[in-house]
């Protein structure tokens, strides 16, 4: 039908002339081939340029061909479509590369030895050593930060959703928004200014405090969203039975939304587990195992990665360790994410919608 319409100019059908379905693929293949041809002929070495040329050819080709057959508007539509697809592909390339490189280079030295030994007697430029001390430091700092940040965040969210009216609530909402945007290094500098005033040396808990500051607004935001999802009927039913408001919140509202709240907290934990800057300023790093977060410098996984990179002096061993630590960190963060999502799906509030 459509091919007939192309040759027959009379408006015999309601459908306008249109290109066959395989056209985008054909143009894509053609432009990639042409792009490779041009690049090879011009002797361009970088594959980024090859890709860019192919992408430009694809967009131009699509517009040209579609404008001739289908008209301007359809051509614009096709260009928009191809731009969206190209954008998607362009964005996926670095992301795939990141994951691929981290895994490929990370598995080189990642083994049980690596996970259970510290860098205590190993120079940064030599092979050997591990991340045990960094894992301990990370777990302690993030654990303490969560113990501080999560309750405060959840309570604030409860205040905003269940009680919050008037100027105070508005101010809190606004500053939670603003706080979300605080760069992590500024939170670190804030604790640092306190440490300078009290003349303290770096220790793990100081890092936890900065991480807690970064965590609170994230927890408040996500918890707020979850509490808002709890249907008002549940609250009203409970209140109508004479249950005090605080018991209604604790026994009805929170259990209903606990899945979402847990998810939000875990995502916040995943976020602060990867923070380097405040840890660099406040915890300082330490190649030895230090189990006490309240005294003496500690290590942490992200800081370990940075220091291996910065102190490597170009040594392959240090880069290998940095990649392996990155893989460990990514695995930790991803597992947290997956578990959080699992909980969210499993415990999703049944709102009846």
């Amino acid at each position, binding site marked *: 039908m459509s091919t007939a319409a192309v040759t027959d100019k009379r408006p015999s059908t309601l459908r306008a002339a249109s290109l066959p379905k395989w056209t985008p693929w054909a143009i894509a293949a053609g432009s990639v081939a042409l792009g490779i041809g041009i690049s090879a002929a011009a002797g*361009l070495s*970088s*594959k*980024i340029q090859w890709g860019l040329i192919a992408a430009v050819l694809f967009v131009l080709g699509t517009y040209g061909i579609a404008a001739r057959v289908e008209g301007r*508007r359809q051509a614009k*539509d096709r260009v*928009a*479509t191809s731009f*969206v*697809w190209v*954008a*998607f592909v362009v*964005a996926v390339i*670095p*992301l795939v590369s*990141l994951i691929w*490189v981290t895994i490929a280079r990370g598995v080189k030295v990642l083994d049980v030895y690596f996970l259970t030994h510290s860098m205590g007697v190993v120079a940064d430029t030599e092979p050997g050593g591990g991340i045990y001390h960094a894992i301990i430091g990370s777990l302690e700092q993030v654990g303490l930060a969560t113990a501080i940040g999560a309750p*405060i*965040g959840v*309570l604030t969210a409860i205040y*905003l959703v269940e009680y919050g009216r008037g100027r*105070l609530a508005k101010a*809190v909402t606004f*500053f*939670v*928004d*603003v*706080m979300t*945007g*605080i*760069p*992590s*290094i*500024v939170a670190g*500098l*804030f604790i640092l*200014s306190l440490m*300078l005033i009290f003349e303290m040396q770096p220790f793990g808990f100081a890092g936890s405090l900065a991480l807690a500051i970064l965590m609170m607004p994230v927890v408040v935001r996500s918890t707020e969203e979850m509490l808002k999802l709890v249907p008002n009927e549940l609250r009203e039913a409970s209140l109508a*039975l004479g249950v*005090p*408001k*605080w*018991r209604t*919140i*604790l*026994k009805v509202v929170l259990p209903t939304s606990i899945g979402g709240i847990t998810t939000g907290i875990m995502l916040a934990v*995943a976020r602060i587990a*990867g923070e*380097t*800057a405040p840890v660099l*300023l406040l915890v300082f790093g330490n190649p030895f195992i230090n189990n006490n977060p309240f005294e003496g410098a500690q290590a942490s996984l*992200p800081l370990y*990665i*940075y220091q291996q*990179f*910065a102190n490597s002096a170009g040594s392959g061993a240090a880069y290998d360790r940095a990649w392996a630590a*990155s893989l460990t*960190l990514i695995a930790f963060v*991803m597992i947290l*994410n997956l578990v959080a999502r699992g909980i969210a799906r499993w415990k999703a509030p049944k709102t009846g919608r």
Partner: protein
Amino acid sequence: MDISTTTDVPPPTPQPTVAQRKRNARGATRPGDRIFLGLTRGSGILLLVIMAAIAAFLTYRAILAINKDHGNFLTTFEWNTNILPPTFGIAVLAFGTIVSSVIAMVIAVPIAVAIALFITHYAPRRMSGPVAYVIDLLAAVPSIVYGLWGALVLVPHMNGLFGWLNDFFGWTGLFSWDEGAPRSMLTVGILLAIMILPIITNVSREVFRQVPQMHEEAALALGATRWEVIRMSVLPFGRSGVISASMLGLGRALGETMAVATVLSPSFDIQASLLNPGGGTFAQNIASKFSEANEFGRDALIASGLILFVITLLVNGAARLIIARRAEYSGANA
């Protein structure tokens, strides 16, 4: 369990007096209620106190440093805090921070919006879920890993692109290249763009999802192509969302530390070309100068951090204002 069931059911209490009933209606009169309200309000106030404390303590330490600054804090092209008299200024840092963030935004915003459209409007249904999921997970990749990848993988790959830009656009001055290692502002901007892409995508996607079906169907019924539907109903509806998403991304780009610190090879001068290494950003400067700084040097770094703090506050505040004003008169609430 036991306790809760017994206490949940109130015993047949004597009829409350009118005054009691009035108080109950207002709530927060029982001791439990009062304690709970106090707790929750207290943590809300604690958040405000923390914000105020951040501003206050940073300002206090910053003033200590700036008072002893031999140069002009705003215009000096130098960062020497360990010598006497100390001379330091933030001109280079402010310039570098703005340039790298602008590059990141120019690259990231269109691509992120396109990906958000891809997920909501273009991708085959079976594909859109996994794609959104992958982008979600990528938002969770720690910045130090991006930094490591940027320094060891992206930088070597930039040589070709830089040579190309130099060949074709070198005459503009903006893209001239002295063949140095490509640890420059443009590389930083590209890396930042990759890092803020997931945030902008996720927020825009949520907004595009909420576009009323009716608006789109009305446009389609009038014979609009898919692009026209998007231009006429999706983008206008989502504009404030996209702006706020971009602001969030900008906030992250401004304050990003580790990725810049690993990729950029810093210097205290302003490079006219985006391809030549040099310059610096607030956060990067703090991270790289910190280990060699004495106590005064740390105060100086805190002073530069204060400026960064103020800038991010302004950006975030502006974003909130835009959103609030848009929400009032947009017809989208229907």
